[in-house]
């Protein structure tokens, strides 16, 4: 299937490519944060298009909390190899040493293994721009996010001090130590992402498709026992259920949904009739609706 010239997907693609090229041209050391999810897959695909026949002039970086689904890691390594792109994998070694884990440490885990790990990696490599696959439609506080989101030298995000963005002109000036997060998918919706994956035949992690997987049910949420590290309550044994994931993260924190959708059209149809929005599968968002904004101020992506 090739995209119609006038379609909204083509317009979104064009816009994203312009943004990706602009970052590559203006910054001295950009990186693409690659979370292995469907949005990252689309973003990477757009980067391949933006520079063809060259390779994207920046590496991919994955912040590995060490609790990702095994299939994600496999997919990540295969993808980088197949596309011939440099892949940086960074984990917070202090956190690993202290055995910080999602079961005992709750939000401290997220902070240490994601937020801190990301800041460490950005500082270590001196990246002055980092692409992220966030979309404005994901969540209220994202609706006002800029395409070039300015971050202080401590990676802080000040909602009052963001630069106005007019036309397709992005101000890419940063002082030493400061950086930006660039969001080329800002104007995409979840539906756009799926339609584009379908139209462009973009590979995604198989976890998005329904398959029998070993899960336990806790507080109405289905958690997959992806490896033997998942502590089981007395009497609890993982049962095979036909499930898939709407969003991917750390397996103990990402709930599966029961589904028979084994093809992209089925996934899209499920999505269209979904009565629960995407992020509710992610346990970190269970607190207040403005919690994302707080996390961003602290430097969470």
């Amino acid at each position: 299937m090739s995209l119609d010239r006038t379609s909204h997907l083509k317009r979104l693609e064009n816009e994203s490519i312009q943004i990706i090229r602009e970052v590559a041209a203006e910054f001295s050391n950009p990186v693409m944060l690659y979370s292995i999810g469907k949005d990252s897959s689309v973003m990477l695909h757009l980067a391949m298009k933006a520079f063809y026949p060259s390779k994207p002039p920046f590496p991919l970086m994955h912040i590995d909390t060490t609790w990702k689904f095994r299939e994600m890691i496999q997919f990540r390594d295969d993808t980088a190899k197949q596309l011939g792109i440099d892949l940086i994998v960074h984990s917070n070694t202090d956190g690993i040493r202290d055995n910080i884990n999602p079961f005992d440490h709750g939000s401290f885990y997220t902070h240490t293994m994601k937020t801190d790990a990301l800041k460490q990696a950005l500082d270590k490599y001196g990246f002055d721009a980092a692409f992220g696959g966030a979309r404005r439609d994901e969540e209220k506080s994202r609706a006002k996010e800029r395409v070039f989101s300015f971050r202080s030298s401590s990676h802080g995000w000040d909602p009052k001090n963001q630069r106005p963005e007019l036309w397709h002109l992005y101000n890419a000036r940063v002082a030493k130590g400061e950086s930006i997060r660039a969001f080329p998918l800002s104007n995409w919706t979840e539906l756009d992402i799926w339609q584009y994956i379908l139209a462009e035949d973009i590979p995604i992690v198989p976890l998005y498709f329904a398959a029998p997987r070993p899960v336990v049910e806790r507080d109405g949420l289905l958690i997959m026992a992806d490896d033997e590290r998942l502590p089981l309550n007395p009497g609890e044994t993982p049962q095979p259920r036909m499930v898939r994931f709407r969003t991917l993260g750390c397996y103990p924190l990402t709930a599966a949904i029961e589904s028979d959708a084994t093809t992209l059209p089925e996934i899209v149809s499920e999505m269209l009739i979904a009565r629960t929005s995407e992020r509710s599968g992610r346990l970190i968002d269970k607190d207040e609706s403005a919690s994302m904004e707080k996390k961003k101020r602290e430097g969470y992506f």
Partner: protein
Amino acid sequence: MAQLDLTNVASGADSDAAREAIVDYIATQEHKGLLRFLTCGSVDDGKSTLIGRLLYDAKLIFEDQLSTLKSDSLRHGTDGENIDFALLVDGLEAEREQGITIDVAYRFFTTERRKFIVADTPGHEQYTRNMATGASTADLAVLLVDARNGIATQTRRHSFIASLLGIRNVVLAINKIDLVDYSEERFEEIRAEYEQFAASFEFDTLTAIPMSARFGDNVSSISERTPWYKGPSLIEHLETVEIGDTSRERPFRMAVQWVNRPNLDFRGYSGTLASGSVKPGDEVVVAASGITSKVDRIVTMNGDLSQAVAGDAVTLTLADNIDISRGDLLASAANRPEVSDQFAAHLIWMTEAPLLPGRPYLLKCGAKTVNATVTDLKHRIDINTFEHLAAKKLDLNEVAFCNLALSEPIAFDPYEANHDTGSFILIDRRTNATVAAGLIWFGLRRATNIHWQALDVDKAARSHLKGQKPAVLWFTGLSGSGKSTLANAVERKLLALGNHTYLLDGDNVRHGLNKDLGFTDADRVENIRRVGETARLFVDAGLIVLVSFISPFRSERRMARELVEDGEFLEVFVDTPLEECKKRDPKGLYKKAEAGEIKNFTGIDSPYEVPENAEIRVDTTEGAPDVVADRIIAELKARGIVT
């Protein structure tokens, strides 16, 4: 709102029919167009409520968001038991606490026919900046007014900004129609008032819709409570309105964003077509250097294209190996952009620290960044009254018309012709903040690198020899008020007294020095500027200069005044009543203007701003020109200009 009905699909997502339905649906979705619009209105006109409702009607509010919304409504809501849709869209914590929207937020929804991106911009006085930001990428503006209050100052301001940024399609959403009993009369009254006032903005479409955002009347379907209203609902209009996008028909332009060099055998130029179309074999020019070549290939990952059109992000290769780098503008060789290191532009100032002429900023236009200074702040525009005012600096949210000088020539088009190649931002070199948005009007090809030469013989020496103090006598007044007659009489008397003079007459100057200028506002300003500069040179020569010019605007007269030293500028207000001028009508101009044959005629359909502190005021109905001229001479003696 039209959405795929999936209630049946839900139960049997695995049946073939259902799958087919989905595939079909996705196919139609792909061919949908995209409309970007912005919503604006005063605080509490119901913008947020309207957007919340659009999203709600588009079924984009999933259940868990809805329950967050319900609990949020209890906490912050202004709407009692009902769901307050506004809370759905007011994003950041701080502003939720204050109950106001303070930044541009982008929302997304889709109907069967189009995908929509909504820029939600706040109505607060100080947020011109945000609205301009939202407007810069919008195809259409929805202006909300509260039916009880009618057209407000903000409505005027928002219309002005929308028009300045080139929005050609406007919806006037007359909201809270429920609170005026769904009154047709009230609706018509507001519509008529708006149409009259907006006539000068030349919008392509202007659609007024009676609406209740809160109760949904005429939002996504026609309301039974306004049976008198025969137009479309808001959604219907947004789905079908034709946006006159002519970008493909205009000349080819593409800024080179990135030079693509995977190996020694391939050299491509990556960028997005700002306008026009291009095919292999087309002759293109690197605008700034004037070097031409032919397009060889249009490269994309999905294969080479036989043609690229406005909006496409592509990589071009050329037949010749020529020097091109990031920031260069590739253009149709037959239809080239302007290239200049000076241009006139509108600036919207976006930061707390004021703009100061002469201070260097970075200017980013397309993919090019250069140094720039504002050399001349011609006038500020009061965005509520659209009046032109003199200004020495520009503060946050102010709009001005300026000349800018750049460190090197760049290629551009007027904003009117091309939003992408005619727009720029200014960046503060120290803080890196984006301080202004700019819209280019025209290039200025003035002599560059000509500096003032220091001279041994100066103004004092020249005027001493002539036994007088140099001065400008600026005669202002309506056409037919007697300015020229009077200036003539004064000059004759000065000559008789042994003084050295020169008379600059408006009409005469237009035959020579200013014969390239018309009567647009910009030309009027330039006209005055040139006359002011000429008067300044004559003052420097030690002369007494008499200028006879209608010069209806205070800002322009102030500009002329500021060109010379304090005490050298004497404004002579020839205060003859309009009725008397019409009666005299020496050139028959009033008759023509009243018949509509002359447009923008001062006193008829263009204002005359009465001087507030003229040094000299005379009324020519009070005596013969000779008598009045004597009064002026007496005044000059009193001020020590002549002896």
